[in-house]
């Protein structure tokens, strides 16, 4: 049985992606030592992690070669991730109290 899609992988491209991933991982360690608030640090680290994940998905997992599957994975994953965000207000309420309650 074949996969149906012949991958146009090349060692050169994979090596470039690998070096980019290493560099992005190193950037996360640099951000950890920056003199910024935890919230700012979180946002920057999340941004770098998302870029890393995107590179791994597109090139290591070959999603760049299958447009339909790319949208399928993206829509399902984003829907799940968005669904998980409903509890943040409760998380803030636990530490700050309920600001609107008198």
């Amino acid at each position, binding site marked *: 049985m074949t996969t149906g899609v012949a991958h146009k*992988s090349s060692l050169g491209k994979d090596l470039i992606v690998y070096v980019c991933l290493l560099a992005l991982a190193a950037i996360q*360690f640099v*951000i950890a030592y920056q003199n910024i608030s935890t919230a700012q640090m979180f946002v920057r680290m*999340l941004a770098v*992690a998302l870029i890393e994940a995107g590179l791994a998905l597109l090139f290591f*997992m070959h999603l760049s070669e299958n447009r339909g*599957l790319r949208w399928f994975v993206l829509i*399902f994953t984003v829907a799940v991730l968005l669904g998980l965000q409903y*509890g943040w207000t*409760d998380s803030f309420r636990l530490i700050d109290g309920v600001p609107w309650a008198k």
Partner: protein
Amino acid sequence: MSQADFSIHAQVSRSEATEAMTAPAFRVPAKKMAMWLFIIADSATFAGCLVAYGFIRNSTPDWPRPFHGAAELTNVALMTLILLTSSLTMLLGVQTAQAGEKAKAFRWTLITALFGILFAALHLREWMGMIGEGATLFHNPWGTPLFSSLFFSITGLHLLHVTGGVIALFAVALKYQRGRYQADDLEITGLYWHFVDLVWMFVVPFVYLLNLAR
């Protein structure tokens, strides 16, 4: 249009419809699609764990930041390097398998599994260090016990995936060498291995680097 033309047109339409109904979704074979569905479901599991960790960290005053030594960070950096490199060796394994170079593919897959074992060993060494400092699932010397509960749960879940991946890599590589499995099977196992690597990209910043002592 003659009766014969109608008949031919109907036959062509029927064969096109049959092809459309039986063709694999997104031109992806069923077993590869099954792996993608598993990856999507598993990403929801990890996302749930990390978001729960975020909720609890955000709502807990005086959250501990126990990682302070260069040795701890060097260990995490080394684990990251090993896991990323294992993804590259997995790619090489799949590429050589697709090129029909069976011996090379087998070797690269075994190297990937060995990287996985090395990663697990470093992870366990780190755990032993923390347990030695008094951290358990329900207690830690740095403050709220929730920290170590979440730390061991999230990193433990990831370690479980790495262990499962190593076993799968060995099993698939051996069966590939014996001719029972094809390059496709290596590729599908590779997808899982890249996913394990991808999850680590989120675990490192949120579980380790955001808990760096200042």
